């Protein structure tokens, strides 16, 4: 006689429609803007192909173990980050709170980056592209001064998009066009996360797969461009000497860590919606490898396009010199071409050195143009947009490129928002009878109003600060405590039993070694190195100041003390949650003088239906 079971409480918890949706969501969360604009840059400055060595070592000893840990944790405990850590031990609840705070801070500024992408996207429907021509000055005799001295692309980014102020202390005004785009972006986020994974699960099919399509198209197009092979050779030529520099290893470790979006709580939230018997080990390895492969795959079109841009700039430089020489010496047209330029120069230098010197010719060196490495927003909004102007059919390329960036960022936003949303749902901030749509609406609305301060003139300086301080150090701290918490407080014996119950296999020796020793040690070393590097010089930033003598170079400025205090606050706030919550519980225990919480030993994954 089998008793008909009561309707289990698990059915109330949302589920993924299928396994593919879950894997795709994790991949979409991990694969973000950093894969496109940070990894190729790191490859370039750290000796090309040689960078892959520390990168894959870091993946093996830091990325995959931590990822497996988070996915297994969420699947076993079936709760969001705050609930999960509270369940493991109330003293560790601070870890969950810390990762929740980081998710909040990152969601705020990340969507503003998407706002910029959207602004460029809606401006791509014009002929000619607005960042390809300079506007005229007042009496129409020439171009706008700021635009003329820098380039049209720079002008469009710094003036027409950001309307940037020369200093972080000058806030400037709210830019209405950015507010409109910000509202649209938060509306899109609301639309996709309105019912939690029910809706993001559908949206992820598009936002996770579409970027791969576009990358392939750009790959094919990029390889046909002139100069692409120069760019690729430059990127991939290994320079093994760079491996001696510890900075390279540090960058590889941090890149793997931040690229996989660990310690945000989003991965825990995603895997908490899984059925209990799911092979989280295979999932972790899959997601990590796909993420790294995507980084590699993305760097190929990026560098083909950069090579093309460098070659075009090199040719322009040559052409300008040729024109001035022809004008000066009154030679017939087309007497000097790019290929015989050097022989002509040496000839003229020997015969008329003073004239050549008087012309003030700029030295054109292809290597110099290739060396101009950029990462981050500079790569996407300045360098790449300039390259797009040079391609035939620029509007289509621009539209494709910005939709791809938007999809990449949006799928990462889903993970961030899920990391904020799921714990709040479980904490029951809003009453249970209220619909989920209301909670997600409130989150999006509040975030929109706070993010308005990033649309000020100085907004992009603030986003840099958030990116450097809120989205870096706290994650390392949270991840460190995650590993320590699971391995030494929850005890790895129990955890390996839970994992065996979920995957059906005993834990490999590899996981034991990495979880117990290697990963925490690596995290500690990376954290120390990171802090040491930050402390070495006072934090500074580069400002766009048209009145600077070295314009169009950016002016190097130091943060004023009150801004530095905010930086420290941003970095310390999530970290300080960890000891604060532990302290709070300690005081409560002493106050009540009886163990009012379930000791961790009684709890285990098998009884995880509560």
């Amino acid at each position: 006689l089998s008793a008909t079971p009561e309707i289990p409480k698990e059915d109330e918890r949302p589920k993924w429609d299928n396994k593919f949706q879950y894997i795709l969501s994790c991949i979409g969360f991990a694969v973000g803007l950093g894969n496109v604009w940070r990894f190729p840059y790191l490859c370039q400055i750290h000796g090309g192909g040689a960078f892959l060595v520390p990168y894959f070592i870091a993946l093996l000893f830091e990325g995959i173990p931590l990822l497996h840990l988070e996915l297994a944790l969420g699947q076993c405990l079936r709760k969001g980050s705050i609930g999960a850590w509270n369940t493991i031990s109330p003293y560790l609840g601070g870890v969950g709170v810390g990762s929740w705070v980081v998710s909040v801070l990152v969601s705020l500024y990340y969507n503003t980056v998407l706002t910029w992408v959207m602004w460029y996207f809606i401006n791509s429907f014009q002929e000619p592209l607005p960042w390809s021509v300079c506007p005229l000055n007042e009496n129409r005799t020439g171009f706008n001064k700021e635009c003329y001295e820098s380039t049209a692309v720079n002008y469009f980014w710094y003036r027409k998009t950001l309307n940037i102020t020369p200093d972080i202390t000058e806030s400037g005004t709210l830019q209405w066009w950015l507010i409109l785009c910000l509202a649209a972006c938060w509306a899109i986020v609301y639309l996709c996360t309105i019912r939690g994974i029910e809706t993001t699960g559908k949206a992820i099919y598009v936002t996770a797969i579409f970027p791969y399509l576009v990358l392939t198209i750009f790959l094919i197009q990029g390889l046909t461009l002139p100069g692409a092979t120069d760019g690729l050779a430059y990127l991939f030529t290994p320079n093994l000497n760079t491996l001696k520099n510890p900075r390279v290893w540090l960058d590889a470790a941090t890149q793997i860590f931040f690229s996989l979006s660990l310690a945000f709580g989003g991965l825990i939230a995603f895997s908490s919606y899984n059925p209990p018997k799911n092979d989280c080990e295979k999932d972790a390895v899959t997601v990590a490898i796909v993420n790294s492969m995507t980084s590699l795959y993305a760097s190929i079109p990026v560098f083909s396009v950069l090579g093309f841009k460098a070659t075009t700039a090199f040719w322009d430089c040559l052409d300008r010199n040729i024109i001035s020489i022809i004008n000066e010496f009154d030679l017939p047209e087309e007497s000097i071409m790019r290929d015989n330029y050097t022989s002509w120069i040496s000839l003229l230098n020997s015969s008329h050195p003073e004239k050549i010197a008087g012309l003030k010719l700029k030295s054109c060196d292809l290597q110099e143009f290739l060396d101009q490495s950029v990462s981050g927003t500079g790569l996407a909004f300045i360098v790449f947009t300039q390259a797009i102007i040079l391609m035939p059919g620029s509007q289509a390329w621009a539209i494709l490129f910005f939709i791809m960036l938007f999809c990449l960022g949006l799928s990462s936003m889903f993970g961030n928002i899920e990391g904020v949303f799921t714990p709040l749902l479980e904490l029951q901030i809003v009453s249970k009878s209220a619909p989920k749509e209301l909670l997600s609406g409130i989150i999006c609305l509040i975030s929109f109003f706070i993010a308005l301060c990033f649309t000020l003139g100085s907004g992009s300086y603030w986003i840099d600060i958030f990116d450097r301080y809120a989205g870096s150090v706290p994650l390392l701290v949270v991840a460190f405590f995650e590993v320590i918490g699971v391995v030494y407080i929850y005890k790895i014996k129990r955890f390996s039993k839970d994992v065996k119950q979920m995957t059906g296999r005993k834990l490999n020796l590899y996981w034991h070694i990495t979880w117990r020793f290697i990963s925490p040690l690596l995290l500690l070393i990376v954290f120390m190195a990171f802090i040491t590097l930050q402390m070495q010089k006072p934090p500074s930033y580069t400002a766009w100041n048209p009145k600077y003598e070295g314009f169009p170079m950016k002016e190097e400025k130091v943060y004023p003390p009150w801004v530095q205090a905010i930086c420290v606050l941003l970095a310390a706030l999530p970290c300080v949650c960890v000891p604060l919550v532990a302290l709070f519980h300690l005081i409560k225990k002493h106050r009540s003088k009886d163990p009012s919480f379930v000791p961790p030993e009684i709890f285990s994954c098998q009884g995880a239906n509560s």
Partner: protein
Amino acid sequence: YAWDANEEYLFKAMVAFAMRRYSSKSTTQISNVLLCNVTDRVSFWFVVTDSSKNVTTIPGSEVEAAIRMNRNRINNAFLLSDKTLQFLKITSTLSPPVEPSTPAWLIVFGVVLCLIVVGIVFLVVSGIQKRKKKNKESTESENLEEKVEVTVTLENGIPCEVLDLKSGHVNGVFAADDERFTSL
């Protein structure tokens, strides 16, 4: 095309035309325009003389103004542009880009925003409808439970519904098939 004496003639004609239009005097002739220092680069100096006053050249500023006024016609006569036919010291007046009354990006933005709003409204409304249906179903099942509790038929001291809910496989042999039994 090659630069020969005919092209030079055309150039002189265009300059004369420009002077005529500018000063509205019909006295400038092609012979008034003099070219010198012609190089292979195709660059040269030219002056415009005034035939009414003896062998004096018209001041450069006047010539500049005349050429500036008719730059477009001169360019088109040679199928060249401001960049390829350069007059030193004459800066070109640039034409501003065509600006439509509503900026193009605003239109695209409007389209995108409309799509988003439609999507949100659709999802919210469908969510509300689903909730209403669920509420109606739960109240219906509540009514059903009330009815069941009223008539509690007993069988061996065990209420029938409990029997039905618990274990119990339906024994096919004793299926309530009325035709099997002889009617009374």
